[in-house]
């Protein structure tokens, strides 16, 4: 579907109604609490409203939004880490995205995301939080399946595989 991200507030409200639910669901799963997820959805859609040229229509809007929400969540996790360094009390409630993952594993994975190189952290979110197949990861990242295979190998070297369970959607 060719989608133009531009226009009035009403146009954006339509876009928001189509996509914000998915954005929120993913942000909530990645960050572990709904307050921060609402903030991510707010920031992402406001940013798109103010700078619609961010969506260059090189991909479908859903894949573009997956990527945008992922980056926003990674930034949020890193900012949260900085805020902890400021010794401000902040203890978000933890949701468990998978029955097979314990809360400790999920927290550990979130902590790991803050230390990973950006591209691997993005990949880890698609792999472990979204449970996306390789072909979908390639679409969101805008690269070939072969490149994703190589990145997954790097990721698995970074992550202690037995400690991380996939999160079914």
């Amino acid at each position, binding site marked *: 579907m060719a989608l133009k991200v531009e226009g009035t507030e009403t146009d954006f409200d339509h876009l928001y109604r189509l996509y*914000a639910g998915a954005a929120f669901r993913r942000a909530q799963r990645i960050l572990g609490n709904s307050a921060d997820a609402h903030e991510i959805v707010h920031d992402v859609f406001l940013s798109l409203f103010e700078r619609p040229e961010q969506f260059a229509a090189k991909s479908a809007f859903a*894949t573009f939004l997956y990527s945008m929400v992922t980056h*926003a969540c990674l*930034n949020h996790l*890193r900012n949260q880490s900085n805020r902890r*360094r400021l010794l401000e009390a902040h203890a978000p409630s933890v949701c468990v995205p998978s029955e097979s993952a314990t809360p400790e594993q999920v927290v550990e994975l979130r902590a790991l995301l803050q230390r990973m*190189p950006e591209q691997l952290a993005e990949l880890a979110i698609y792999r472990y939080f979204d*449970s996306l197949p390789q072909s979908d990861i390639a679409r969101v990242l805008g690269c070939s399946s072969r490149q994703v295979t190589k990145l997954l190998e790097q990721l698995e070297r970074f992550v202690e595989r037995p400690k991380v369970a996939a999160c*079914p959607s």
Partner: protein
Amino acid sequence: MPELDALEADCLSELVLDEWSAGELSPAQVQRCEAHLAGCATCRARKLALEQANTTFYSEAPSFAALKRLAPKPKPARSLANVRWLSAPLLAACAALAFIAVRQPAQPAPALETRSKGAARIGYYVKRGDAVTRGESATAVYPHDAVRFVYSADRAYFLAIFSADASGVGVYFPNGRTAQPIAAGQDIALDFSVELDNTLGRERVTALFCPEAFEIEPVQSALSTGSPLPAFAASCERAGFELNKQRAP
């Protein structure tokens, strides 16, 4: 990871379900999805769960128009008088603070080179135990040192302070979505200190002083991915320094 592999082989991914829900799939793709769904109770349940989650979200979340009005108003930074650990004698010393000169970043932040065309500056003090010293660019700092930022500006600006080290790009200031207004002045301390964690290595701290309010996230994203900064940044002043985080002797 058997669950994941099984999904790859047979089932519709969440991305595909989202694309379907948003009407992005072609008629042929929809037909294939429907055919799969007809024989897969797992995917039917997943699709239903996603639809229910969306319904709940939209019933509770405000419209986009309402969301726009919810953006918080930034609060001004406090002056040096509010700083806790900068003592009175040190306040005097602050006047002589030599702010940190412009340097090339040693860590990833290729799009945010520091330049010094204007009069906006950023510096820092380090508190280690009871001792407070002026920080220099690349001076060694240790885990659990407290760092406090100070700025000088010849006019009012909107300010955000970013950090870039091997783990990525973060934001030190403000603790919110938009850059905060700051007043003109010399040696103004921001009202927080950072306790350094155990991460070692070089960390580039960059302050962006802009004439207009701006969203933090697009700048941080651009820095994280190495892509160009938003156009508004061309009208901003940049200043920064490096923290050289080393193991305590």
